[in-house]
């Protein structure tokens, strides 16, 4: 029988690679009986969904634009790079 500590470690590892069949069975058994570890698993999921949301919120925010001076600088840089080749 897994302890909560072991279960939490397996839950964390499952985010990086698939668990073995045996690990998965042990973890499922533990999760059937343990509310705290279920909440932990949920917390990690929310955390990852949240991190992705933070990124897509910025990516989709058309109010955020490459500043004009940076754009000008990049164009100049590309020109001078072209000449030096």
């Amino acid at each position, binding site marked *: 029988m897994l302890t909560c500590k072991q279960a939490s470690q397996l839950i964390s590892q499952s985010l990086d690679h698939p668990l073995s069949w045996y690990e998965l069975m042990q973890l499922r058994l533990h999760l059937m009986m343990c509310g*705290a570890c279920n909440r932990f698993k949920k917390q990690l999921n929310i955390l990852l969904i949240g991190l992705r949301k933070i990124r897509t919120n910025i990516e989709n925010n058309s109010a955020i634009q490459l500043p004009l001076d940076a754009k000008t600088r990049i164009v100049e840089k590309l020109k001078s790079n072209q000449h030096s080749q």
Partner: protein
Amino acid sequence: MSNNVNDWLNDHGDYLYRFALARLKDTHQAEDAVQETMLAAIKNNSFEGDSSIRTWLTGILKHKIIDMQRKLIREQPVSDIIDLDATDESMDDFFDKTGHWLDKPQFFDMPDHALEQSQFLSVLDACMQKLPKKLKAIFMFRHVHEMENENICKELDITPTNAWVMLYRARMGLRKCLEMNWVKG
């Protein structure tokens, strides 16, 4: 200069900038990343037309962002980045001797309401920024730049065991921080 690049910058510059900003959280670094991407794109015009220009440029940008992250990390002493003491015993802070939670995880969910959700996300972001340097680096590689563990190990020159212990600790720390700063009552 070929008109292509000007077009690319006009059509995709803003998107690339936002993509970089979402990951680097620094306007100057994000501008630099876009510039490096454009330079690489004209220098090594490997666009083959089997993907969209934007996908191709974003692919280059992803590499540039990881390069920049790597440089930032390399500027720090190795001992600041790699937790060589990361062993099973060092993870005991959250459990008692018998492996039970010292503080049971609380229930929280992503708020539906827009304002509440944006508050939740800023707490989450702040918690990530507050992670210890060593853990933040590996956590960002894994969950912001979405690198596979195998590549992270090569990048940081650590063993798979060390990587999973550090990731575990980062996740434990982050969820605890979120719980303390978000869950009310």
